[in-house]
């Protein structure tokens, strides 16, 4: 349990300490065993059949889902009364991360256990849970989530599927087409969103056997070819009224709340995928010889491995910090109360910003990893016989689904500003302070003898950067800022990178006393390498925003402030990179 419970986005205005964060090193023995079970499942049951999955062997995905169910991997988030284990989010993320190494099946798993199952857990009636949940947690049934339509992608609520009550009042008749439905070809239960009387956006639980429900052919995809993606077509599909999920007209709550968890889980899953791809890259660097030596000897390769290691370290730190935040908040809700899941939802909603950050940051770390792993392979990276090629293709979807990275980026400053305006976040007061700070000369001196002194110093400055620039943006556009997407995207980059830098830093501070000297130095190197790269990104994004929102003297003051607040003394950067690369090459895996 953290020392104090941070609110959503509070990290931007409050200094957190190492005792405020949960880290992967804090896992209990049971959680490690659960991770091990997931590893074994991937290694023994999934990896050997990946090729067969890739060719869409009928029945294989459903069989794997049942095996995942036997292993208990589908029980994590479900309540005990329905055969679940009601474990915390940290465990759920840990399992998702390990399953992230399962290639396309990772996507099937996430769709089933996340967006496929959670709406029922959170909003289902007892009767609905009795009927369906126990089948989903064992894997006897697979689940799919049907929100997207041909003309409603990012505009998730813009779907045209309709639901009409039959004259006898016993059924809703669903008509419409859902598209890009993961697990479509084999799912037994679909959570479908439709508008009742073309108005009230509502969720329905629809069984596969429902007459009028047909599943379209498999889409031919760029990547994750081993997962099933189909359209699901409703032509007069009669769904019993008992199968309305949640309240009529409140479907958007379900759609969006479940996406919070989905995004967060995706952050964990892609981190697992990144670790897998990294192994391949590190091993190849050791094995491949050019100019008579392994290419691992070259700085050009080492720098890639170092940068990727630092990125994965940050992604991991960020995901589990968020898991800790959510778990701590959920733990304050008394169980067995009527409004439990309502409060639970609000608890997760509190961190909608961090969930979006996890999705964007981690998926982009994976993108960097697979790209460089292909690059490390040179020409072989382009050849299908080597796994790098598949990692590269499989990665791409992660920046698109669960809300494109653009949608998620917009959501970050959008939500922050909305909360600030509602008075939930004292952003304006802090922005004023930061602005005043700009007018006074800096007296802070670094004490280089303190560990992470430079990172601590710059972190404070980065937060001020966000405050100053977003303050200027609000001043310029006021409420209209929500429509200035270029500005919002720039602000998002600043906020995202700050969360990542701080998460990695706090984790390193927390775990360092427990590490051997060598591992401690590795962690410090990861923090330095990551901080340097992230500060550069923040400075660029902040300057971009400054030019968008200001001119004349204001612009000059802003740019001066950005320059001052993004100063980072990265002395020792090259040795830090070489150290990380050496650790990665020695172990041929993500070394931390």
């Amino acid at each position, binding site marked *: 349990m953290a020392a104090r419970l941070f609110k959503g986005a509070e990290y931007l205005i409050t200094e957190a300490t190492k005792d405020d964060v949960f880290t992967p090193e804090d896992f209990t*023995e*049971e959680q490690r*065993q*659960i991770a*091990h*079970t997931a590893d*074994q*499942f991937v290694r*023994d049951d999934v990896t050997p059949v990946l090729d067969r999955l890739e060719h869409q062997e009928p029945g294989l995905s459903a069989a794997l889902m049942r095996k995942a169910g*036997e*292993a*208990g*991997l589908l*029980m*994590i988030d479900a309540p005990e009364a329905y055969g679940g*284990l009601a*474990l915390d989010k940290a465990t759920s993320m840990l399992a998702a991360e390990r399953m992230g190494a399962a290639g396309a099946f990772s996507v099937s798993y996430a769709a089933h256990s996340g967006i496929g199952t959670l709406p029922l857990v959170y909003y289902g009636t007892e009767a609905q849970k009795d009927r369906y949940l126990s089948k989903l947690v064992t894997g006897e049934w697979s689940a799919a989530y049907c929100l997207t339509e041909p003309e409603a992608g990012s505009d998730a609520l813009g779907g045209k599927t309709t639901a009409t009550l039959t004259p006898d009042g016993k059924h809703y008749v669903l008509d419409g087409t859902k598209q890009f439905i993961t697990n479509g070809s084999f799912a037994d239960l679909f959570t479908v969103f439709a508008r009742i009387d073309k108005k009230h956006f509502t969720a329905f639980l629809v069984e596969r056997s429902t007459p009028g429900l047909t599943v379209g052919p498999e889409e031919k995809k760029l990547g994750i070819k081993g997962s099933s993606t189909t359209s699901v077509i409703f032509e007069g599909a009669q769904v019993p009224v008992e199968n309305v999920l949640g309240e009529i007209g409140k479907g958007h709550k379900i759609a969006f709340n479940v996406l919070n968890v989905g995004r967060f889980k995706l952050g964990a899953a892609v981190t697992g995928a990144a670790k897998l791809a990294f192994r391949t890259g590190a091993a190849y660097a050791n094995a491949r010889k050019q100019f008579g030596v392994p290419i691992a000897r070259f700085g050009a390769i080492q720098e890639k491995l170092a940068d990727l290691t630092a990125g994965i370290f940050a992604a991991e730190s960020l995901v589990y910090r968020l898991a800790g935040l959510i778990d701590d908040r959920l733990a304050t809700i008394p169980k067995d109360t009527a409004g439990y899941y309502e409060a639970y939802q609000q608890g997760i909603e509190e961190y909608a910003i961090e969930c979006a950050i996890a999705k964007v940051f981690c998926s982009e770390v994976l993108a960097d990893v697979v790209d460089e792993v292909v690059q490390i392979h040179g020409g072989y990276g382009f050849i299908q016989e080597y796994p790098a090629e598949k990692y590269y293709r499989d990665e791409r979807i992660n920046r698109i689904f669960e809300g494109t990275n653009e949608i998620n980026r917009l959501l970050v400053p959008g939500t922050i500003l909305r909360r600030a305006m509602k008075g939930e976040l004292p952003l304006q007061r802090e922005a004023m302070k930061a602005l005043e700070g700009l007018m006074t000369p800096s007296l802070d001196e670094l004490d280089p003898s303190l560990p992470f002194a430079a990172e601590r110093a710059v972190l404070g400055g980065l937060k001020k950067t966000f405050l100053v620039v977003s303050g200027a943006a609000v001043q310029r556009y006021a409420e209209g800022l929500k429509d200035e997407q270029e500005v919002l995207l720039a602000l998002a980059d600043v906020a995202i990178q700050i969360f990542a830098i701080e998460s990695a830093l706090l984790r390193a501070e927390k775990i360092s006393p427990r590490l*051997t000297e*060598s*591992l401690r130095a590795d962690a410090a190197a990861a923090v330095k390498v990551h901080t340097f790269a992230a500060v550069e990104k923040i400075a660029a994004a902040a300057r971009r925003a400054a030019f968008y929102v200001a001119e004349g003297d204001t612009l000059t003051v802003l740019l001066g402030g950005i320059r001052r607040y993004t100063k980072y003394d990265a002395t020792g950067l090259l040795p830090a990179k070489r150290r990380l690369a050496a650790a990665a090459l*020695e*172990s041929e895996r993500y*070394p931390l």
Partner: protein
Amino acid sequence: MPLKLLVTVKRVEDPESRIRARPDGTGIVTDGVNYKMNPFDEIAVEEALRLKEKHGGEVVVASIGGAAAMVELRAALAMGADRGLLVRHDGALDPGVGSALLQALVAQERPDLVLLGKQAIDDDQNQTGQMLAARLGWPQATFASKKESLESEAEQKKQPGVVLAADGGRALVVREVDGGVETLDVALPAVVTVDLRLNKPRFASLPGIMKAKKKEVREIPAASLGVELAPAVVVRRLFDPPRRQAGVKVADVAELWTRLHAEAKVL
């Protein structure tokens, strides 16, 4: 007849970890090394669980080692074993001492069958089961295996490889020997050590892991068992094996044959 099964569980270095000797030869480099249950012991636990599922009874898992060995005991409990015994012993252990400590546990527990991995993948001794059987004066069946492949239907149905006679007093054990498979018929109580091909161990399910937390593990100080704890197999020094030097690349099959024939003289 319900069976009482005692299974050994040793904490060893993960075979996926890179193992090398410390430069001073006093041990191995443990930085970055993970630990897990000896894979052969995992097979022994699986066999015991299958026997229990078929015949009823109790599976007791035992480990000798430091406090950390609790992790592997919990892992065995998570697979489905009923309770654990941890003989606390922090010093060096050899098969002689190990088998003597196990003999003392057998005296306390009185199992029908003791199952052990044929060897631990750290010291690779392959002695403890045989020595335990000798100390107890029990029959032994080492390197237990199975005739069916690990892809067979029997394996899918998780049938035990060790077949008990109807009266429960004897067991048929198929064992891997050089050049074939031998079947032995041993009177119980007996000691069985298991080989790789006996079964494919289940992994702990999540409910199993959660239940294991509540299962009993009794700690027993090694010194309390009345066994001489000084090892008789003493490792004086460890070193990395000489690295094989890369040889030559041959141009074609003809050169390969010539070299193998005339130079290496292996063809």
